[in-house]
C-alpha cells in the first residue's frame, strides 16, 4: 500500500497563502464574550483611547459563527466550561483564541488547595494561541496580544517592539 503523498510539498500557493494570512491578520473579528473583570478592560481597549479598531479588530460579533477570535476575558468556572467549549466549537475555522488575564491562563488568584469551582486555565478546554498575563491586563497588553497573534499569522511584526528603558 502506498503512503499518501504529502501534496503540500509539491503544490504550494505561497503568495496566496501570504495574502490570506495578511487579510486574516487585519480582520480579526472578536466574539462579544466577556466573562469577568477582564471584559471591562476588553471594552476599554475598544474605547477611544486605545481603539483596537485601528487594526480592524473592533467588529465584535455576538454570534460565534461570524467571529474569528475568541478573547477569553475572565475566569471560567466548571459550570461555564461546557458553554465556553460549545462557543469554541461553534466558531468556524480558521479561529484563534487569546487567553486574557491570569484566570484564563491558569485560574489566577482563584486557585488554592481545595478549590472546587474554577477551571485552571482555558487551555484545559481548547488550544490557546496567545496568553496575556495580568489581573486584569491593561488594554495596551490586549493590543500587544493582538499584534502578537498577527505576527503569528503573518510572520511579520506590525510595529517594532518598544523596549522599556532599563
Amino acid at each position: 500500500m502506498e503512503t499518501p503523498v504529502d501534496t503540500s510539498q509539491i503544490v504550494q500557493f505561497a503568495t496566496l497563502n501570504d495574502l490570506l494570512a495578511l487579510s486574516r491578520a487585519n480582520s480579526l473579528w472578536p466574539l462579544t464574550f466577556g466573562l469577568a473583570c477582564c471584559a471591562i478592560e476588553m471594552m476599554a481597549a475598544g474605547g477611544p483611547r486605545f481603539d483596537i479598531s485601528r487594526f480592524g479588530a473592533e467588529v465584535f460579533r455576538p454570534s460565534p459563527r461570524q467571529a474569528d477570535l475568541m478573547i477569553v476575558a475572565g475566569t471560567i468556572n466548571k459550570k461555564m466550561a461546557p458553554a465556553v467549549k460549545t462557543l469554541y466549537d461553534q466558531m468556524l475555522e480558521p479561529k484563534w483564541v487569546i487567553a486574557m488575564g491570569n484566570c484564563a491562563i491558569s485560574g489566577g488568584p482563584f486557585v488554592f488547595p481545595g478549590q472546587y469551582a474554577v477551571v485552571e486555565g482555558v487551555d484545559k478546554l481548547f488550544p490557546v494561541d496567545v496568553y496575556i498575563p495580568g489581573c486584569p491586563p491593561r488594554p495596551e497588553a490586549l493590543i500587544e496580544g493582538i499584534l502578537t497573534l498577527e505576527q503569528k499569522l503573518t510572520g511579520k511584526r506590525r510595529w517594532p517592539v518598544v523596549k522599556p528603558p532599563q
Partner: protein
Amino acid sequence: MIAPTDIPDRTNLQETFVLNLGPQHPAAHGVLRIKMTMDGEYVTRAEPIPGYIHRMHEKMGENRTWAQFLPNTGRVDYLSALHYNHAFVGVVERAARIEVPPRAEFIRVITSELNRISSHLVWWSAYLVDLGGFTPLLYAFDDREKILDLLEAVTGSRLTYCYFRFGGLCNDIDDVFITGTRAFVTQMRPRLKMYRDLVTDNIILRKRLEGIGPISAELCRKYGATGPVLRGAGIAYDVRKVEPYSVYSQFDFQIPVFPEGDAMARYRVRMAEMEQSLRIIEQALDKLPAGPVMGKVPRVLKLPAGDYCYAVEAARGRHMVRVVSDNKEIPYRVKLRTPSFSNLSLYQEASKGMILPDALALLGSLDLVIPDIDR
C-alpha cells in the same frame, strides 16, 4: 408605548417556547443566563440562572488571613472595587477597634466617589448599548479613562483596586491627584449636561424607557433590592445617609429619588448620583485634613470572637460584609451580601408579561455585575 396593563394575559396559553438567553449573550453583561419562556415576543416567565462565574470568594475567605482576603474584595464587583474594599476594611476596623486617621477617611471618600462615577459611566454606556445606541459607550469610556488615570496614580491599578488597608490607606495622595481631581470635576459637569441633552432627553430613549419595568417600593422591600433600584421606586434609602459610615455625615449631598419606579427613574437616579458624587468630591477636597494616612494596626491581626457587620453604599446598592471570627488570624466565615444578587432576584416577578426588548431594558436598568451575583 404599551402600558403593561394593555398586554393580554398570555400565561395560560400553551404555545410557548423556551428562549435560552445566555450565558453568552450581548445583553447578559457577562455570563448571566436567563431561561425565558416566551409566547411569541412576550415573556411569560423569565428565570435567571446565575452561577456561571461563581469564584468561591467566601470559601477563599476561610483560607487566608484577614489581610490576604482584601484583594479578593476588589474582584467581587470589579466596577466598584473601592466600595467593596471599604466594606471589608470597615468590618475589620470595627471588630479590631482600629482608629483610622481622618485624612485617610477623606481620601477614602474621594476615591470611592470617583469609583462610583466610573461605575455609573460603565453602566450608562453598557445600558445604551443594550438599547442599541453605541456611541455613548465611547464617550463614557473617554471620561472613565480620566478617572482611571487619577485612581491608577494613587492605587496602582486600573480596575480591581486594593487601595484601602486596615487602619488607613497604602498610599497618600499628592498634589497632582488633587489638582487632577479638581480639573476632572470641572470637566465632568458640562459633560453630564451634554449627556442629558443628547441622550437622556432623546425622544426615542424616553419612549423606550418611560413606564417600562415598573418596580414598586414594596416589591423592592420584599426582595431586599437596594441602591438605585430602590431609590428609583421612591424610597430615599442610601447607606451613606441612613447608616452613615466613614465621614459621609460631614458632607452636604442629596439622595436622588424618583418615585416612578420605571427604568427611566432608575436611569435618572444614576445620572443624578454622578452629580452628587462630584459635589461630595469637591467638599472632601476642600475639607481634606493633613496628617498620616495609616493608623496603628497590630502586627498580627486577630479579631475578637463574634460576628460583625459593615454595610456600605456600593454603586449598585447596599453591600454588607458579615464576618464571623473565632479569634484566629483567619476568618471563620466571610459573607458578602451583594446588591446585584438581591436586585436580580426580583427580575422573575418584575418581568412577567413584558415583550423581549422591554424585558432586556428592565434587566439592564438593574445594573448587574455578574460576579457580584455569583461571588
